């Protein structure tokens, strides 16, 4: 059998991986790193759900519990969710999908991975040194003055990893502008590209604000002087405005790429072109823009003026519109389709449903009157987990399955894939649906103990977390297995459109034997009408 060189067989030493300029290898490096952080954040979640299985705070102390939810939030947001689809799938697929040989700046790409790892090391160091108990939101004055946990160390970690995000975003933006294949105009681009492009705009515009805000917290903590201290004429709410100016768009960094993935998977397994392509593209841009205008909805009860609250509430309702358009369009794409329930399709359909529920509950929270009761309760926790886990994580896994043949050159076992998707869906709902009820009943978030009447729902939630864990461990197992024993994959196992499927699985080092030329639009699945 003739061995063809591909990007995986181009050098087997560790050194060849750690000094690579190949975007595909860098994507794999990111995949390994974020998987490690995912399980670290998951370990914290396991401890949290174990503690909350009983009403008494008997497993860990209140201080330790605070440190657990802080590490869960910090690791999951900055070291898993934000890089997940853009840095893994984006890095791998963007050049392939646009017919380019690599990203615009390959060395900068490698640098971004090293910066990610460095940020991760600082964060783990903070954990080892005893952790942080401020919550991932670092509110002042607790973080600047009153806590004695390792705030500055963890801030350094997050500050550093922010630069990794910025470099990734910069690379994607320049690549999409400058390296598209001949014939590939903007409105022939796959929606995955649109989604990662918009995400990269947010990465560039929002992350620097977070970086400086965290620096200001660290400086105030270190010197005792700063802009958040009312005694010096400052304002703690300045922190919240600055923090949420980044952190709200950050949630769109987490969901837009997932929407891009859904727009690739659903047309493929419905054998239909996506419904309303232009509206989908405009909706992506609309979400990215409007997402910058709504941050005050995290501050309705903080002391912010009521007038500002009303402005932010109205803008928050507006941002639901482009998201809803996308949900309608994915659904319409299924109409008269020839649907095949592959594992990626199960993940994608689960995504559409769970994202819808999460999004609708966001509207509850956007309503000022309701938010007064629901804020800082488990309702909020359920809302964002529906979107971040039911949405982003499901699509990250769906994407891994869909493009696994391209990335690894192997097929994963399809039946196991479907079982894992269903297990995840069931486990997820069992974990997080009860939390909506708990929040509505008044259980506050970030508490390690609660009144006994909340126990039954908490037990359901903790049981669900166990099922969810199985849903995560299964793919870890069979995807790893498939690397050695999986069936070898053809170039296009799904019969999908897109330039990435026109090259072998796995692709050669420079992606294409000849420069592809594009002559038609994306998702050409419909027969000639």
């Amino acid at each position, binding site marked *: 059998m003739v061995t063809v060189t591909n990007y995986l067989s181009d050098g087997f030493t560790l050194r060849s991986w750690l000094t690579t300029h190949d975007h595909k290898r860098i994507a794999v490096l990111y995949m390994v790193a974020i998987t490690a952080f995912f399980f670290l954040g998951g370990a914290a979640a396991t401890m949290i759900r174990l503690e909350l299985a009983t009403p008494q705070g008997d497993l860990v102390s209140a201080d330790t519990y605070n440190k657990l939810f802080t590490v869960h939030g910090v690791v999951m947001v900055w070291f898993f969710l934000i890089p997940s689809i853009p840095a893994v799938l984006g890095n791998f697929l963007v050049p392939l999908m646009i017919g380019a040989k690599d990203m615009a700046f390959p060395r900068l790409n490698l640098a971004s991975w090293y910066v990610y790892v460095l940020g991760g090391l600082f964060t783990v160091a903070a954990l080892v040194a005893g952790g942080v108990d401020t919550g991932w939101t670092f509110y002042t004055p607790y973080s600047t003055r009153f806590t004695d946990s390792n705030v500055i160390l963890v801030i350094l970690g997050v500050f550093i990893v922010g630069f990794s995000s910025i470099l990734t975003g910069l690379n994607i933006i320049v690549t999409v502008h400058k390296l598209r294949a001949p014939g590939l105009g903007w409105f022939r681009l796959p929606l995955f590209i649109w989604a990662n492009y918009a995400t990269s705009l947010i990465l560039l515009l929002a992350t620097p604000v977070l970086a400086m805000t965290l620096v200001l917290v660290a400086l105030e903590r270190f010197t005792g002087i700063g*802009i958040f201290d009312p005694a010096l*004429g400052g304002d703690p709410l300045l922190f919240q405005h600055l923090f949420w100016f980044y952190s709200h768009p950050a949630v769109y960094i987490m969901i837009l790429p997932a929407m891009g993935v859904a727009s690739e998977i659903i047309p493929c397994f419905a054998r239909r072109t996506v419904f309303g392509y232009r509206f989908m593209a405009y909706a992506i841009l609309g979400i990215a823009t409007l997402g910058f205008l709504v941050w005050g909805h995290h501050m309705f009860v903080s002391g912010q003026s009521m007038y500002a609250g009303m402005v932010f509430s109205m803008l928050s309702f507006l941002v639901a519109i482009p998201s809803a358009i996308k949900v309608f369009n994915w659904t319409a794409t299924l109409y008269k389709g020839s649907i095949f329930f592959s594992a990626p399709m199960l993940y994608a359909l689960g995504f559409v449903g769970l994202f819808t529920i999460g999004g609708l509950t966001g509207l509850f929270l956007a309503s000022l009157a309701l938010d007064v009761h629901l804020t800082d309760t488990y309702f909020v926790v359920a809302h964002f987990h529906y979107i971040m886990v039911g949405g982003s994580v499901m699509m990250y896994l769906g994407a891994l399955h869909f493009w696994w043949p391209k990335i690894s050159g192997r097929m994963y076992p399809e039946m196991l894939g479907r079982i894992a998707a269903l297990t995840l869906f069931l486990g997820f709902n069992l974990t997080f649906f009860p939390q909506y009820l708990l929040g509505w009943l008044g259980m506050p978030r970030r508490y390690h103990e609660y009144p006994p009447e909340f126990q039954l729902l908490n037990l359901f939630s903790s049981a669900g977390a166990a099922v969810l864990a199985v849903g995560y461990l299964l793919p870890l197992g069979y995807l790893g297995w498939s690397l050695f024993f999986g069936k070898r994959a053809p170039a296009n196992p799904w019969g999908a459109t897109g330039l990435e499927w026109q090259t072998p699985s796995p692709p050669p080092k420079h992606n294409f034997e000849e420069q592809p030329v594009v002559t038609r639009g994306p998702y050409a699945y419909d027969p000639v009408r």
Partner: protein
Amino acid sequence: MPTIPFDSRLERREAALLAMWAFLVTEALFFGPLFFGYVHGRIANPAAFVSASHPMHVVLGTLNTALLMTSSLTMALAVRGAQQGKAIRLWLALTALLGLAFLGIKASEYWMESSEVAKASGAELTFYFLYFAMTGLHALHLTIGIGVVAWLWRHAARFGREYHAPVEVSGLYWHFVDVVWVFLYPMFYLLERYNA
């Protein structure tokens, strides 16, 4: 020179310019929260900010502004020189020297101001916090810029009509650092000078 994945030098140069502008946008947003803190402080504590600004050395600050804007001129001339294939070392050297002069004056100001800070209280401390944070961050960026210009000076022979993107891109960065200072100068030196 690696030109993978670009098809031509022109494409690579355009990509470099776009990348630097995108990076400068991130830098503008990086300085943003500091400006935000200043605006809040100035509106909430006008008297304290004014009184804290009076001991500032307006002559040195004005001189520094002139030096930095002149260095932007010399940098622009270096960029034009590179584009036209002419000699650029003189302009680059002048740019770096003007930048170093700025830093020297700044350092001496810091030395003199540290005793003022000890006497400050309340929102005056916030003024000084912002002053040191913003001008310090600016000085850090300027130092990096001087390093880059020195590197360009060292490798000046490489640049000419065919290949000058690194000089252009460094020029953009240098001018951005100048623009930031253009805003910092009145914010810290020119508050009610008629009462000083």
